[in-house]
């Protein structure tokens, strides 16, 4: 299989050159597009490494959604730069401070990377080989799902995922602190409308599929949430102010849905005399699906909030129908 070897070399070369180019440029927009290309090739690399779960997450978030988020952020930054350039600033002091700050951050990053590499090396040295993977496959039958990745994320190490959802919730609160959301987009042209017309339903269906398929094949709440969020982003780009994202209390409910469903299930099990998040094998499948559905909604809501760039406000004056 020399063909595959050459393919692998080309993949690695592409990743390295894209990463270097994305970091080396001063132009933020160029950097973002290179980063998106990097995410795309990275998804292929994960696929080649027989890790379709990661490939799916990278394709949904790395290549698609974060590109849209970053492109919007770059535009916003350009606006702000234009505005602030009109005000007089103490140029020299600022520049000195900036250089010092950049170097400090760079050194810190290098130190942190070194520390992580050292810790990883230690872990690899000491950990007995493959016992974790064996433990997962030995207990897969009682996990309620047949996809080992979902079994780990939602059952064996459900605490981790609960805390991840809490991190996302914190991020959403941080976005709220940025103030009101951006005003939105002007109505796009007819061709984009024609695209959104089929793309939005297709993305919704795909999100549902990824949620369901996560139980026995690559997929799950994170990939599904990102895909659902992409549907909302397309609606926003098509000129819809409200994109199906609720406002007020309903939005708050959606944001905490993942964490609260997790906690409700965990506490319910405690009441029934089981350990926290220790599902009875017979119910495990259903409970996991329930938690994943709530988690998908929370993840999608958080990602859409990130695209909004602030707290969504009800449309002024004309009440708009939500879709």
């Amino acid at each position, binding site marked *: 299989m020399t063909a595959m070897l050459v393919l692998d070399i080309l993949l690695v070369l592409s990743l390295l050159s894209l990463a270097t180019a994305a970091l080396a440029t001063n132009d933020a927009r160029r950097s973002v597009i290179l980063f998106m290309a990097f995410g795309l090739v990275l998804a292929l690399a994960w696929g080649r490494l027989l890790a379709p779960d990661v490939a799916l997450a990278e394709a949904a978030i790395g290549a698609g959604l974060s590109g849209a988020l970053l492109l919007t952020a770059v535009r916003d930054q350009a606006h702000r730069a234009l505005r602030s350039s009109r005000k007089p600033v103490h140029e020299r002091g600022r520049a000195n401070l900036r250089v010092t700050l950049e170097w400090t951050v760079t050194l810190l990053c290098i130190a942190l990377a070194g520390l992580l590499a050292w810790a990883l090396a230690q872990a690899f040295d000491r950990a007995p080989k493959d016992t974790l993977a064996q433990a997962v496959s030995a207990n897969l039958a009682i996990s309620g799902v047949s996809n080992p990745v979902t079994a780990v994320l939602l059952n064996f190490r459900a605490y981790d995922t609960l805390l991840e959802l809490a991190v996302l919730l914190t991020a959403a609160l941080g976005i709220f602190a940025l103030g009101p959301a951006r005003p939105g987009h002007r109505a796009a*042209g007819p*061709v*984009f409308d*024609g*695209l959104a017309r*089929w*793309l939005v339903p*297709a993305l919704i269906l795909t999100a549902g599929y990824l949620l369901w398929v996560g139980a026995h094949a690559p997929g799950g709440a994170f990939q599904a949430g990102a895909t659902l969020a992409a549907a909302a982003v397309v609606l926003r780009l098509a000129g819809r102010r409200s994109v199906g994202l609720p406002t007020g209390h309903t939005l708050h409910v959606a944001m905490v849905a993942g964490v609260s469903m997790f906690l409700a299930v965990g506490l319910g099990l405690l009441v029934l005399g089981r350990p926290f998040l220790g599902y009875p094998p017979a119910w495990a499948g259903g409970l996991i699906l329930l938690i994943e559905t709530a988690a998908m909604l929370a993840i999608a809501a958080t990602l859409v909030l990130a695209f909004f760039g602030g707290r969504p406000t009800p449309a002024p004056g004309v009440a708009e129908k939500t879709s």
Partner: protein
Amino acid sequence: MIEVMASLLTVSGVGFYLAGSIGLLRLPDLYSRLHALTKADNLGLGLLIAGLALHTQDLLIALKLVLIWLAVLAASAASAHLIAQHARRRETQS
């Protein structure tokens, strides 16, 4: 026989992809390069998917592959148009 057909389709699909990428590098301006994009998606992916569908010999998988092809087609037609329109607007403004 089917195997040979499938392989032939797959290889010619890859050929059109390569032609598209070479076009992307050789063509002189943005609009001409956009031609290379939609062409590779249309015939390149189309033939590749026809070949793969013959390879798998599973109707449901074949249908799913065709869906993916249609999605790529519609997406690339729309994005090619959006990019061209975007560039055209800037040209006429300045």
